[in-house]
């Protein structure tokens, strides 16, 4: 009977196409919009991803990673004096204007790392060596920044062409020369501009006006000390705020700076609202289209279901037939929608814009919602069929 149910579903190609379009479209909208949303939100805690350390220490008033409140240099000694700390390194982050050679200004995220150990250095350098950062007036910029700060010129075909910054190119930060000795590959950020790495001491020079330059401290716990436990100790002993650096959103601990940054943006900006409405709209459109289509499918087949009922099929069998039909349509619709979403996603990831992060959870939630839509449609159909009198088949 279920095979017949499927044959009934697949028999009407126009209706099937409509049904699958509705389901696939809603799956696409939900998956794609949520992924872009989480992609944009993942940009908010980009520094946590680009600058890796087990524990971050900040001023007690800091709420999120883009809002550094400077510490005193001697705080480094205080953190290093906390039991359980294996090492602690200074970190400077700030948003400053960089002046390009053509006179243009660009906002950059200046990152100063410890010149001795390079703790917090970018993991992937596509050009150059990190050691060259010890040379005078040197910086490492990220690939996106190199392109963003590149020179506009005319290509061989006569069209305007952007030449990305190369190793050896220079620009200025606060009238101090910055010579590029490396290009790194890091994640883009929501606030500020491209990441420009230099040494901690040189960052002091680049930010002339700033009185304190210690934004964060990167801390490594000793073997056997859990990061969260070390955070407790640091907070107790120094009165500073300590954070863990986990960035996988479903395993965020209470102390995760990324998590706090995420929720800070959640509560303080309109991004979640605008994207939430888009996702909800996708859901409603999906429910409306596919529910409507499936309902009309049931209506059209109502007399046949009544005949099947008269021929001795119980409501259980008919209900299961409808569920099989609805869920098959749901599964295929989900698969097609997910396929389209991931295709769009791959293009977006390739271009880097807009950010696209499809968590498995997004996929599962979409799956559950599409099946939910199917279930609702099936239930409506079942109710409709169960109300039909088997005797109605005898009336012409």
């Amino acid at each position, binding site marked *: 009977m279920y095979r017949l149910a499927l044959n009934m579903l697949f028999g009407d190609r126009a209706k099937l196409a409509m049904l*699958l379009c509705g389901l696939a479209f809603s799956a696409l909208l939900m998956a794609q919009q949520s992924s872009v949303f989480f992609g944009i939100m993942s940009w908010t805690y980009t520094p946590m991803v680009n600058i890796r350390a087990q524990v971050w220490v900040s001023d007690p008033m800091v709420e999120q990673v883009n809002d550094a409140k400077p510490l005193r*240099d001697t705080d480094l*000694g205080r953190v290093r004096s906390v039991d359980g700390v294996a090492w602690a390194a200074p970190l400077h982050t700030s948003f400053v204007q960089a002046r390009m050679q053509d006179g243009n200004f660009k906002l950059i995220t200046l990152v100063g790392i410890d010149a*001795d150990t390079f703790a917090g250095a970018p993991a992937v350098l596509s050009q150059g060596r990190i050691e060259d950062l010890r040379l005078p007036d040197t910086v490492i910029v990220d690939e996106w920044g190199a392109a963003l700060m590149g020179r506009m010129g005319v290509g061989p075909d006569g069209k305007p062409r952007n030449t990305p910054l190369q190793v050896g190119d220079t620009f200025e930060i606060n009238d101090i020369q910055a010579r590029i000795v490396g290009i790194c590959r890091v994640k883009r950020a929501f606030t500020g501009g491209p990441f420009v790495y230099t040494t901690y001491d040189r960052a002091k020079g680049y930010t002339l006006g700033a*009185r304190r330059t210690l934004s964060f401290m990167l801390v490594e716990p000793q073997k056997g000390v859990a990061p969260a436990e070390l955070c407790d100790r640091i907070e107790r002993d120094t009165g500073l705020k300590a954070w863990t650096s*986990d960035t996988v959103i479903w395993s965020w601990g209470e102390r995760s700076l990324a998590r706090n940054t995420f929720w800070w943006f959640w509560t303080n900006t309109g991004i979640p609202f605008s994207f939430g409405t888009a996702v909800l709209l996708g859901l409603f459109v999906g429910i409306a289209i596919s529910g409507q289509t499936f309902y009309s499918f049931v209506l059209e087949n109502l007399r046949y279901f009544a005949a099947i009922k008269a021929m001795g099929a119980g409501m259980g069998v008919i209900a299961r037939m409808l569920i099989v039909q609805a869920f098959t349509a749901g599964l295929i619709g989900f*698969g*097609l929608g997910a396929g389209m979403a991931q*295709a769009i996603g791959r293009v977006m990831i390739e271009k880097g814009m807009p950010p696209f992060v*499809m968590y498995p959870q997004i996929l599962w939630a979409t799956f559950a919602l599409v099946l939910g839509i199917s279930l609702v449609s099936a239930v409506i159909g079942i109710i409709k069929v169960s109300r039909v009198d088997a005797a109605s088949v005898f009336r012409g």
Partner: protein
Amino acid sequence: MFKKRLLLFALALAGAGAALQLTRGTATETPVQPPPYEPAIRDKDGLIAAAGLVEAVAENTLLGSPTSGTVAKVHVKVWDKVKAGDPVLTLDDRDLRAQHAVQKAAVDAAAATAERAADVARRWTGIKDSGAVSAADLLSYQMAAKEAQAKLALAKAQLDQTAVLLDRLVLRSPIDATVLQVGVRAGEFVAAGAKAPVVLGDITRLQIRCDVDEQLATRMREGLPAKGYLKGESSLAGAKDRSIALKFVRIEPFVIPKTSLTGASIERVDTRVLQVIYQFDRPTGRALFVGQQMDVYIDASQDAPGK
């Protein structure tokens, strides 16, 4: 028809599979990698961390000039080891030398005068009894001889004085030391009491001045052992132990404002530090310079030995 349906299923499955595959990367956290160069690892509890600056033991001798004058000769270069008494600088001494020659001639003249007066006195004394001379004249001859003797002594003393002054134009090292800085060249003028032209220091034994945050000062006690890690020694990363053992010298009794400030006019001092002095032997085979920074870990986990 059946094939088409299969195609639809396959398409859906492929779509879901590709989407699932795309999600796989998102589940992984960027791993925390160790820094490119291994930092100094704290391996025990109860440590006080401080920032230290390397300086010479007994601090540095800023050699000054007692007189103003032009530098005639610089006897040393930076890094020269000098013994106590070795000449360091010589100032221009031509005027004193000229005076010295005049005074030497004056001594000779006075000696000749004294010799003649003594001879006259002796001769008249020998014929005293003959009565060829009055007692009064004899006394006068004897007095003249004495006077000439005194004038000779004066001339000699003046010569000696000039010799001492000449010697003073040669600046000598008061201690066994290494020349750390030479700020003058021959021909330059140095004023008495002005900026020291030469810095001497004993750098066979170095000491380190540690800034301990005032909030950690309560944990500091006398005689605590400590270890230091030199900044910029990341080339030694991975070496088993690159720490330098430090020996306690003293705690400066005065908590002072932290000195390494940027100097901006709006600057207010809000950090005070306790300074603690440690001493250490210059490690062999490792470059180490006065003025270098060091990360210092003071071991406050146990009671200070012997105190």
